[in-house]
């Protein structure tokens, strides 16, 4: 299980090439990468704040839950903090399992929990001003799926 919280960028390709590379029993690797979106060309940057210590703990708990629920061979979570420009990678998750269904479901689960249960907060700094991104009811409701 790999959990990293960092300011630096990461190389999605290199991470996936290394992920579960030594496991012969893996038949499926699923990954998701989150990118800073600027839908209306107003965003200067996204500032991501986190709670050092609790963040690592929460991500490790979430990944451990996914590992046990889906019998994963491995799970990876990388999440950045600090100021990120449109188009920059924010985070990625990857899951490795014998078969694809478990890998897809576990990756979906990781994302749902990471959205609402990992202590990160996003502030959008736009040409019109700045505002904290509000949590969506949909994101909270999504936890009910699991």
């Amino acid at each position, binding site marked *: 299980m790999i959990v990293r919280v960092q300011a630096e960028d990461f190389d999605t390709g290199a991470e996936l090439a290394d992920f579960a590379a030594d496991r012969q029993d893996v038949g499926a690797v699923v990954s998701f990468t*989150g990118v800073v979106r600027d839908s209306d060309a107003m965003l200067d940057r996204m500032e991501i*704040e986190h*709670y050092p*210590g*609790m963040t690592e*703990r929460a991500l490790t708990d979430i990944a451990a839950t996914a590992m046990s629920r889906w019998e994963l061979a491995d799970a990876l979570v990388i*999440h950045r903090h600090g100021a990120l420009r449109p188009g920059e990678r*924010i*985070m990625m998750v990857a899951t490795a399992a014998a078969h694809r269904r478990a890998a897809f479901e576990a990756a979906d689960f990781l*994302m749902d929990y*990471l*959205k*609402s*249960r*990992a*202590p*990160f*907060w*996003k*502030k959008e700094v736009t040409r019109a001003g700045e505002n*904290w*991104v*509000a*949590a969506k009811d949909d994101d*909270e409701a999504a936890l009910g799926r699991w």
Partner: protein
Amino acid sequence: MTLDILYFAWVRERIGEPRERLETSAKTVAGLVEELRAREPRYAAAFADLSALRVALDQELADFDAPLDGVREVAFFPPMTGG
């Protein structure tokens, strides 16, 4: 009892500092919130609507009626927006 209190995101901005150390006799999170609210208007503003806030005790999510026995670190923040 001495507590480290941490604030994040707009709670931190409203209160004007990221953390502070506090001597309190509050028994629960709700009691601590009452104490903080009474201190200064900036605290009253930050804690005006508890439904907009979350709390963690020693880095684990908790409820506002949770006891503070043995707790060292209390953090207040808005609902999380990771991913």
